[in-house]
């Protein structure tokens, strides 16, 4: 089938200065694109001098390249690199612009916080802004402040607490029983016997206690009388012991008689001493007689030594003899 022919199309409407307009659009596009790339580089801190800060964290989860390090809510640094260090910790390298480095000091503390809503935050705290500046390439430990890490423990504690509360408030719980007991006690205490009836459990017991108290009072009264009599008795005893012609005066006389008897005894002993001196002289003449006894003893000892050597001789020749000891008489 022959294709149908169409009438020639009208030439498209000519746009005035189309080349110029298109050139303007394209040049504007190129300029905007280049300027934007330059602005992004400026915004990323490519053109500013920075110093390096290294933070060591136990867990680097949530930390991303490009995230901010903030000080008092203002960004003062940007994470450039995260890697696992040789000791297994997360090593976070941060570039801090030199203009913002004044906020970080040698004593600054760094925290890594994970909140329940929102991302992880790296924060710096400087207590003393007069401290030494943080040196370039400083390595600091980062403290963790993690709200979500505490949640499981918190929930477990809450659960235990609620279980305890449930047990305490159950129908047959000890607390309920105690409260019931307290109610019974207060009911009894509001009775005619008052608190005593409540404590002792019944009216009868309370009456018994009151009777016992009355008896105790009567006993105390009679005891008072007894003590008054005892006072009189003690006064009389004092008179008989320490009074004129009492026990103490008689005792003093007896002691004087005893002193005289002791003087007589001392005289008797002096006489016995003279007798003993005579006896000493008798014993001196006896010692001279015992000098001959010494010679006799030496002879006996020499004979014994000889017998001893003879026994040794026999023992040498008689090998089976075991006991070589010689017992002196």
């Amino acid at each position: 089938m022959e294709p149908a022919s169409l009438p020639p199309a009208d030439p498209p409407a000519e746009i005035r200065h189309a080349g110029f307009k298109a050139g303007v659009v394209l040049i504007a596009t190129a300029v905007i694109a280049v300027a934007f790339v330059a602005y992004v580089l400026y915004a990323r801190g490519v053109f500013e001098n920075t110093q390096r800060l290294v933070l060591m964290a136990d867990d680097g989860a949530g930390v991303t390249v490009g995230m901010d390090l903030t000080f008092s809510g203002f960004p003062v640094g940007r994470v450039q690199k995260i890697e696992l260090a040789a000791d297994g910790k997360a090593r976070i390298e941060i570039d801090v612009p030199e203009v913002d480095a004044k906020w970080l000091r040698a004593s600054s503390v760094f925290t890594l916080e994970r909140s329940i809503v929102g991302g992880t935050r790296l924060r710096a705290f400087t207590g003393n802004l007069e401290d030494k500046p943080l040196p370039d390439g400083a390595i600091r430990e980062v403290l963790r402040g993690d709200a979500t890490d505490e949640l499981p423990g918190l929930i477990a504690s809450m659960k235990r607490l609620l279980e305890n509360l449930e047990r305490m408030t159950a129908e047959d719980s000890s607390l309920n029983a105690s409260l019931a007991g307290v109610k019974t006690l207060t009911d009894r205490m509001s009775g005619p016997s008052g608190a005593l009836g409540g404590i002792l459990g019944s009216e009868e017991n309370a009456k018994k206690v009151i009777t016992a108290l009355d008896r105790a009072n009567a006993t105390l009264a009679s005891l008072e009388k007894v003590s008054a009599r005892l006072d009189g008795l003690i006064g009389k005893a004092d008179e008989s012991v320490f009074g004129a012609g009492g026990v103490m005066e008689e005792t003093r006389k007896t002691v004087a008689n005893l002193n005289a008897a002791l003087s007589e005894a001392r005289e008797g002993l002096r006489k016995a001493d003279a007798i003993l001196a005579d006896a000493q002289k008798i014993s001196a003449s006896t010692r001279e007689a015992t000098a001959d006894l010494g010679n006799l003893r030496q002879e006996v000892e020499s004979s014994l030594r000889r017998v001893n050597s003879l026994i040794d001789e026999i023992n040498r020749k008689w090998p089976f003899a075991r006991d070589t000891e010689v017992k002196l008489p």
Partner: protein
Amino acid sequence: MQATFPGRAARLILFGAEALAAAVSPSTYTAPARRIAARQVCSSAWQVLPAFMLACAILGALVIRIVDSTARDFGLSGYTLDLYFRVLVLELIPLFVALFVAIRSGAALSTEVALLRAQGELEPHRSGAADPLRGELLPRGIGAAFAVLALTVIGGLVALVVAYVSLYSLSPWGHAAYARAIGHVFAPVVLAGFAMKVAFFAIAVAVIPVAAGLASSRDLRSVPDAAPRGLVGIFVVLALVEAGSLAIKYA
């Protein structure tokens, strides 16, 4: 007979590669070709620029207001600009621009190619005459691609300015936080991915309508089918590129 889907896809890729090779070849840019490309840039970008910038400003103001108030409600106002840049500037505006140019220029381009094919203008035996594919259609495709690039860049700039003015009005004191958010979101990898995505969008908007027109039969009655086929093709490719970009970025 209609070609199967893999066959059409293979032909599309082949045609796209040829068009790209021609687009980067200096010999393509003859004076008439430049004139046609300029006319295409004007009709796709220049003529709609005020309305487009206004639309971008309104969209940006709406989105920043919604994102900011929601983020404040949840105590996450520090993430307002991050979210805005990621959603509007990096994703929505390029997609919006690509669809806009595809509907404004792509549909017409598909229909014209289908008409040329129906009239036999694209037959090989007529190669003695000026090749309409290289002389007329390629510059128009290049112009459409440049329009996508230009509108994306300008729309993005408008959205950035609107975000700053909405959050900080004209005060200079918001600049530090604003610059930090830009530096945080537009990392070099993200910026490179964004540029590649926009380039793919531009190529898709330039190539697919022509390929859809060329895929029509020589029957005049098939001409009206070329435009919707080209648009559907563009939508599918844009969706695939966007999905791939998101998957690479966030997966």
